[in-house]
């Protein structure tokens, strides 16, 4: 309690604590709203999970930041009533189905893509659809027609014939362009897409879904595979915290125990520990992790274990050893030995309590190191194969040229989260170091 009070005297420690608590809150939220299997499904589900998101779309708030008015994604379906659908029997075995998608378009930019997804029910004879486009100034543009399968996608943006009819303009631009304007700008107003379908069987039916892919999406945007980055950014928080904390606790405690044993028994035990520390110093850390990741498994838990093992004989061991040696010679330990206390009792009751004040700042300072190690492994392509993590988002952004192509949000969002996490623990660690090491106080 006294320590806690002292910590609050350091503004940086308070800032660090606030950051850590916020991250913990986000982690709890992520774990409650999105169970592990759900997160993995949303992240690795494949095209059917993400098909109605735009590709590499900026976050929505970028509109506010830049003052642009870029389009959001418009999704309308005849199944949920957003589009009107009517059926009229033309003859005995022919029914005409009209689906109309009326929508307002008031954005300054063109959409990214246009697609219509059809679902049709029929036994043998394929239904036939034709699509036409009505602009606010009353023009009607024929888009195209085709017969459709039970589940079919009509990618209007990729229709080469339509592109020719639009004077070589890409469909998503040509269909929205204002013909009166000098430059290529979208015409604002009420548009309509009409799908008229013919079915040739009694029970046959057609449903359609229009997706006008926007240029901005959600709170954090999407990646090159149309995935909402929200999943990775949100779920990456508990993963980063868990990895960092577990690795820090694991290494610190083991390191302390080993250096304590070495200092206590001295002689060859101490000697051996010193030599192992030196070997560990020249054992290439990332190369070892890379070999293990490449040859065996990239599971995050295996990596965690290896990271802990490789860090046990790290820098901390010498610091602890020095303190242990000092305590070992102190009078109260000598007294304990005089009354016949066992080695174990002395180590656990006298040596370890003395070292804990040193241990705490070290532990907190180590957390960012491990958080960044996990991210580094992902950047190297050795991240966990299923889990969505911050490092993997950075890695994918890098591989897909996010910085070259101007998708800055894609790289910046996970990087800022990583940086904030690192800073939070680092700030707290620095303050703890000063609280527990009076020698540093005031320096």
């Amino acid at each position: 309690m006294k320590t806690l009070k002292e910590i609050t005297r350091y503004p940086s420690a308070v800032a660090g604590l606030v950051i850590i608590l916020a991250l913990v809150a986000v982690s709890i939220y992520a774990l409650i709203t999105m169970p592990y299997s759900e997160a993995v499904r949303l992240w690795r589900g494949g095209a059917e999970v993400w098909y109605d998101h735009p590709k590499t779309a900026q976050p929505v708030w970028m509109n506010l930041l830049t003052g642009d008015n870029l389009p959001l994604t418009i999704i309308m379906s005849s199944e949920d009533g957003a589009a009107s659908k009517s059926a009229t029997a033309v003859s005995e075995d022919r029914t005409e189905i009209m689906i109309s998608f009326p929508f307002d378009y008031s954005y300054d930019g063109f959409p990214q893509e246009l697609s219509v997804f059809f679902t049709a029910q029929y036994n043998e004879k394929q239904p036939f659809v034709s699509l036409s486009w009505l602009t606010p100034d009353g023009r009607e543009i024929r888009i195209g027609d085709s017969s459709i399968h039970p589940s079919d996608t009509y990618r209007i943006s990729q229709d080469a014939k339509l592109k020719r009819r639009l004077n070589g303009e890409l469909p998503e631009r040509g269909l929205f362009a204002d013909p009166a304007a000098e430059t290529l700008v979208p015409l604002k107003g009420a548009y309509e897409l009409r799908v008229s379908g013919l079915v040739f069987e009694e029970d046959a039916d057609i449903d359609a879904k229009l997706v006008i892919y926007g240029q901005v999406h959600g709170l954090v945007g999407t990646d090159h595979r149309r995935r909402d980055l929200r999943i990775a950014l949100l779920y990456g928080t508990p993963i980063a915290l868990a990895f960092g904390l577990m690795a820090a606790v694991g290494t610190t405690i083991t390191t302390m125990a080993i250096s304590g044993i070495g200092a206590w028994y001295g002689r060859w035990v101490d000697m051996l520990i010193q030599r192992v520390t030196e070997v560990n110093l020249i054992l290439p850390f990332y190369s070892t992790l890379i070999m293990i990741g490449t040859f065996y498994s990239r599971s995050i838990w295996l990596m965690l274990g290896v990271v802990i093992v490789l860090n046990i004989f790290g820098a901390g061991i010498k610091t602890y050893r020095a303190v242990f040696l000092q305590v070992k010679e102190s009078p109260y330990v000598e007294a304990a030995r005089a009354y016949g206390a066992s080695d174990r009792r002395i180590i656990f009751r006298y040596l370890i309590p003395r070292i804990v004040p040193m241990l705490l700042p070290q532990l907190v300072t180590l957390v960012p190191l491990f958080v960044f190690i996990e991210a580094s492994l992902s950047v190297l392509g050795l991240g966990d194969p299923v889990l969505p993590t911050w490092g993997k988002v950075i890695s994918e952004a890098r591989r897909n040229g996010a910085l070259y192509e101007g998708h800055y949000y894609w790289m910046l969002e996970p990087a800022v989260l990583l940086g904030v996490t690192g800073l939070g623990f680092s700030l707290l660690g620095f303050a703890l170091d000063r609280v527990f090491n009076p020698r540093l106080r005031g320096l």
Partner: protein
Amino acid sequence: MSEATLTMDMDVTPQEQEKEKAGSSTFSRVARYTLVRMVLLFLMVIIGVYLTILIANMGGYVDEMRRGFIREEVSVAIFADESAEMKRMTSEGKKALIEEQVALAEKRLGLDKPFIVRSFAFLKDAMTLNLGRAEIMISDSGSSQVRLILLERLPPTLALWGAANFVLFFLGLFLALYLSRKYGSLLDKLIVGLAPTSAAPAWFYGLFLILIFAAILQILPFGALVDAPPPESTVSYTLSVLKHLILPVSAILVSSIFANAYAWRTFFLIYSSEDYVEMAKAKGLSSREIERRYILRPTLPTIITSFAMILIALWQGAIILETVFNWPGLGQTLFRAIGLYDTPVIVGSAVIYAYLLAITVFLLDFIYALVDPRVRIGGEGRQA
């Protein structure tokens, strides 16, 4: 901040030290210390490389690598044999001959022996940098020898890390001295406040630097060693390399300089409150003289030890920084090898990194021996 230290003990018994004290020159003492460290470090490298082999071989990859290599060599030799005897042989006969020869070669190389025996054979190969052939990757000179692929990449790596560490050490030292002089000033407070930012590694700051200077401002290149196509003249080539060095070196600086300057300035402050410094001040020595002889001199061993730890941590992170900056060094080669699943290159680069780390530790030990009076004068060399 961890004030971790490298072991600098010499592993000589007190009696021997006594003998030493009796009558030997500084030179022989330093030479002896260096020699002992060298032998020790060499042993460490052997153990390190052996561990690397154990890790790599647990999946059986090293053996598979060698078996594949033998089979390829034997088949090529047999199919290339144009003698009359060979021409008469059927393809089944040739296959049987290949099997026979492969079995012989495997026996000759000891692949039929138990793993422990074989692992020592591979250790010898690794220590002599006989790293085998790459599966896919080739060096710029067209060889598939892993040793050539990796050694070709060494100069860019050394250039980058040499430049960065040189700047980091001297800038850190001068900044720390300046701050200890201006203790409590605004700059001092700023650097202390910025010290926690060093929790992030260099590649992390690299991303931001690329974003700002390459993507947005477009004044510095995104990465790589030189412009494409490389300039003809040596002068413009060097200038181009220097231009490409700015961002990665800055990334290393940003990630280390603040914590570095903070830690060193704290050492200086602790040492400048020693009695002998007060005494020197009372004697009226100039502050420059005090700094040089009474503060810098005794802190130098500590500074070098702390720098050694930074250096080693930086080496370890080299792979990712080089990847982020597309710097054609060892790290980037390793990154490409992971992507191509080229196991001999991955194992080989682990061996090269172990060597590089050992050489770094050794050089620092040597410098330490030169500046630490406990080694030079032959006093108690043990720290605790």
